[in-house]
């Protein structure tokens, strides 16, 4: 039975990873609706037999809600997502906390959704004298399997994951641009469309999940190369702002843990190394950092 449940979790995560909103395809939208319809009907069974699978489902749902809430759409899908989110929050709250800092980041955009106010209020409650969201910012509840590094993968289509690994390990900095553009094309990313939202989580994925390759190739691609290129690719103003938030979120919430340097370094190198060739980009990032920190 355990093996079956592991398989079920794997299948759910696989489907979740392939779910992202695109501008044109109605088939894609139908697939998303059908999938969450099944999840909604079977949520009690999943909660009982395979509770770990609820965390990625929850994360996917709140990310989808925040993307759709930007456009103030209240669709059937959104109502269904809200229902699933409420169910998981009530039944598996402690497991959800393993999302840590990513949960707080996702909630930044959920302030606009009145139906989820209960979540925001609870995050502001104090436990042992410390506000819950502060504990989450320090990833206090993460576990080896359920941690922000692994859970961010839910937002990354498998092709992006595989191809990013290839770029970091085997591509050279002379051709990685072409690889990235090709990769985005394959996933269906188009400029100035809702698909750009994938790149926000892709930035988080590059920062917290990926490492710079250690194959010692002289022309190897570093994470900051990819971040610079992805940021240049983003055209929609909303997503550019969200991307900047994603880049600096760890800076503002630095907990003093030495391992966090991994999250700061690529953004810092992007600013530093773009100053000559892409001065506007470096300035835009620095300007945003100062404003964001002040707010």
């Amino acid at each position, binding site marked *: 039975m355990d093996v079956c449940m592991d398989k079920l979790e794997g299948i759910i995560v696989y489907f979740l990873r392939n779910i992202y909103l695109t501008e044109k395809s109605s088939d894609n939208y139908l697939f998303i609706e059908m999938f969450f319809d099944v999840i909604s009907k079977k949520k009690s069974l999943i909660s009982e037999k395979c509770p770990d699978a609820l965390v990625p489902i929850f994360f996917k749902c709140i990310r989808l809600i925040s993307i759709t809430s930007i456009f103030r759409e209240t669709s059937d899908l959104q109502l269904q997502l809200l229902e699933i989110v409420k169910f998981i929050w009530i039944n598996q709250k402690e497991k959800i906390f393993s999302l840590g800092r990513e949960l707080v980041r996702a909630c930044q955009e959920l302030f606009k959704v009145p139906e989820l106010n209960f979540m925001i209020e609870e995050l502001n409650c104090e436990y042992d004298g410390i506000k819950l969201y502060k504990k989450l910012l320090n990833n206090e509840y993460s576990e080896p399997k359920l941690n922000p590094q692994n859970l961010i993968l839910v937002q990354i289509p498998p092709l992006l994951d595989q191809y990013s690994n290839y770029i970091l390990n085997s591509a050279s900095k002379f051709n990685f641009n072409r690889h990235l553009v090709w990769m985005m094309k394959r996933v269906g990313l188009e400029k100035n469309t809702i698909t750009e939202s994938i790149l926000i989580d892709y930035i988080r994925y590059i920062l917290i999940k990926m490492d710079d390759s*250690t194959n010692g190739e*002289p022309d190897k691609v570093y994470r900051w190369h990819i971040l610079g290129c992805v940021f240049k690719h983003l055209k929609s103003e909303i997503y550019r702002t969200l991307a900047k938030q994603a880049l600096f979120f760890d800076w503002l919430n630095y907990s003093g843990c030495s391992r966090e340097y991994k999250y700061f370094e690529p953004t810092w190198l992007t600013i530093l190394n773009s100053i000559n060739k892409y*001065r506007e980009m470096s*300035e835009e990032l620095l*300007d945003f950092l100062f404003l964001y920190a002040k707010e």
Partner: protein
Amino acid sequence: MRKSKYYDNSSYEGTDDSAEQNVVKVFNLFNRKQLDNLLGCEDLDAHLRNRLQTLINNTKLGDLNINSKEDKMTIEQGYHPDMFQGDFRIFEKEKPFRINQRGIELEKLGDSVPIFIRELNSFNTFSSEASIKNFSMLLNDIFQKGVTLANQTYSPTMIDQLSQDQIIQDSAKFVLLLSEDFLKQPILFADCKSFDQIFSKILARNFDYENEYPLLMGLSYFLFVKLSKLFSENLNLYYIMEKMMAIIFDQAPIVHFEFVIFLSLMKFYEEGTLTNKHKGIVNILSDLKLERMSEIFYRCCSHIVGVSQ
């Protein structure tokens, strides 16, 4: 509420520091040279430059509230530039015959010392006095050169230049050749009947005593401390050293082995199971954190092809 058993900073009680203070702390982690370069960039918007300048001044003035638990933890775990000032005096003192010996090895190397090393200012200082202190400075400059190359931007013009990888390879070779006599010293473990005897042999290779104070003798302990020092002070340079260490481990297994022994000593020391005989020497290691050194060691090993977790 359940707290994960994997959460290891149990003493941490959160922080009320503002986002601005946190950003200052993050800037405090970065390489000072890089910050100065950014400030020196004439193209940068004047308003941004002023903001940056204020921020960097704040960092320099030590505006950080270093009494807070968070900062104490930062300092404990590394990266704070002031952390090691005045510590590890062992770098400052070594027996003159070791310095001379190193000088002789350097002379033997002659023109085979890579050109990029010979071009560095600190090489002149090192060749006039081949002390471990000057060697440390020379290594810093070598790593800095490696970092500069790695920071070339999107359209680099470094095809014909020296690559970072080449710098790492050459410097590893240089370190090994320079310490040839140390590496060639045979250690016979056949007659060792306990860990204690192995420890004694390894420590004798790395230290000598003068009035009870241990003097630095060997390469391994120097590299061991240097890794930790760089990890705390400058991560950009540290990454280069990490890779250089992987090559040294691969080509000089004795250094690899001695690192393991140092870690074991630290472990026994922490557990309180170390014999009195070695307690004095291990006081030097107590400036280092076992957990962090183990992580650093593991990171170096992970670069070696064929060594698994």
